[in-house]
């Protein structure tokens, strides 16, 4: 009996020593374990919760679509979904458009100081997110930098009230806060482009504009898509910015999710709102990537 066991252990040990796969899986297992326990399991539980109901202080685990009916049926929630997606789409578009020339500059025009530029571009990102958002409240507010500046210059006599507490303020603030998430992926994809392709296009008589449109832009598209997804998906769930600079007109879906968990205490409804917003974002993202790919195929 023991002989058999020793033999199989020995075989296992030999298999381990020979097999890259076994060794790799063993090394991966701690990360896999924590990610399953602290990321996958909570997400599955969140999905389950969205099918349950809140019964006073207890949770009724009888599966139902009631929370989804409320999430998608109530006009205020529907309006918030639309607004969250609109705001994030605007943020994504503006951030990517502004970041592209910046990334292009560092990838193609800077030679020895690339490293310095990249550090300069990332530093603001690492300073307190809360306070970066709050800084925009200081800038746009009733007594803020813009209003007090314009008034002390005598250009206006009453503070402008349309600057803060609206969706535009949310868009501006998020476009500022998420800039590095656009610059870095686009920079990486631009940096990877084989420069001899550009020389070849030039030798074949393409001008700068054609070279950019037919070589550089299509080849940098993976970076652009990466940047867009990396901004669009998380910003739809941002809570800090709409709370600080959004006002009642700039509230986003995260604000009602937070409310269900913190104040109302209806976790199943909060879970359904979270699931529904992630699903909406996933569909929007897939449509966007498909559209961009189709457009890129037509250019080529």
């Amino acid at each position, binding site marked *: 009996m023991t002989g058999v066991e020793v033999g199989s252990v020995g075989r296992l040990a030999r298999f381990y020593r020979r097999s890259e*796969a076994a*060794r*790799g*899986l063993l*090394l*991966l297992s*701690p*990360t*896999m374990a*924590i990610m399953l326990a*602290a*990321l996958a*399991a*909570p997400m599955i539980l*969140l999905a389950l919760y969205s099918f349950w109901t809140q019964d006073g202080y207890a949770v009724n685990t009888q599966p139902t679509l009631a929370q989804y009916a409320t999430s998608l049926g109530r006009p205020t929630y529907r309006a918030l979904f639309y607004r969250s997606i609109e705001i994030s789409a605007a943020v994504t578009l503006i951030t990517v458009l*502004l970041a592209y*020339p*910046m990334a292009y*500059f*560092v990838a193609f*025009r800077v030679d020895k100081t690339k*490293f310095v*530029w*990249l*550090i300069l571009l*990332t*530093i*603001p990102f*690492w*300073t*307190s997110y*809360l*306070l970066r958002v*709050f*800084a925009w409240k*200081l800038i746009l507010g009733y*007594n*803020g930098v813009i*209003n*007090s500046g314009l008034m002390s210059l005598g250009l206006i006599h009453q503070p402008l009230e349309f600057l803060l507490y609206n969706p535009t303020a949310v868009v501006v603030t998020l476009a*500022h806060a998420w*800039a590095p998430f656009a610059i870095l*992926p686009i920079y990486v994809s631009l*940096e990877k482009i084989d420069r001899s392709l550009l020389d070849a296009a030039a030798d074949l008589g393409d001008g700068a504009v054609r070279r950019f449109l037919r070589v550089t832009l299509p080849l940098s598209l993976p970076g652009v898509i990466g940047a867009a997804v*990396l901004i669009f*998906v*998380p910003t*739809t*769930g941002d*809570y*800090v910015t709409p709370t600080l600079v959004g006002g009642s007109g700039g509230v986003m879906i*995260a604000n009602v*999710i*937070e409310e269900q*968990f913190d104040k109302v205490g209806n*976790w199943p409804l909060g*879970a359904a709102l*979270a699931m529904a*917003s*992630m699903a909406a974002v996933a569909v929007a993202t897939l449509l966007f990537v498909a559209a961009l790919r189709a457009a890129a195929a037509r250019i080529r």
Partner: protein
Amino acid sequence: MAKKSGGLGLFLYAVFYLAFLYVPVLFLPLFSFNNSTFIAFPLSGFTTQWYQQMFADEAVQQALFNSLRVGAIAAVAATTLALPAAKALTRYRVPGGSAVLGLANLSLFIPEIVLGISLLILLSVLGIPLSLWTVTLGHVVICVPFAITVLMSRMEGFDESLEEASLDLGESGWMTFWRVTFPLILPGVISSLLLSFMVSFDDFLIAYFLVGNDATLPIYIWGQLRFPYKLPSVLALGAMILVASTILVVIAEVVRSYGLKDRHKMVGA
């Protein structure tokens, strides 16, 4: 070489873009020295009283200490978890390796609020009380993708034949890791620790849902933002964070690229 056009225009654009990134952030230190509780132009005078007020505040000290503790533990845990994973993903062909990498990177694509509430639900189902430890757990989840990215790019950046030579000379896999691989990736490890620490130190939303009675620094700041008379000392705190994290970013990036020929390529990886 293709002719470069629009050089000056692009350069000016880059300068304006940097200004757009920096000016809002620089209002924090600017107003933190202003001699008035009103945050408005024109500045009324120079003072360091807000800094004195902030340094004297015990709640700030406690929150800072909590954040340092959570950040240090989360950084060490995330880097320790990412190290074997990065080795497996760069050195071996592992079935399902990309799935594990995808799962680890998933937290970058899920809104933080969703990560926060889903962990909150899990903890409440398991009956685990909220504390700084639960915040730390949440932070490990968001730090791992940063740690894996940094470590993988470092492991791809050096010659694997050094490891093979060590194995050929009869060292065991474990000793090869400690005596060859680890020293070579040490800059990546340090960089991963610093970046993870900063991700944790700056996180508000996950901590907001998972924190018990002990506030971390962002939670403390969030509480202060409601009181106008507290704002100047919050700005002083923000200015201090700005300076400290600038120093940390520069160290993290310089260390990360240390000993690599193509240093600029590592930053964006």
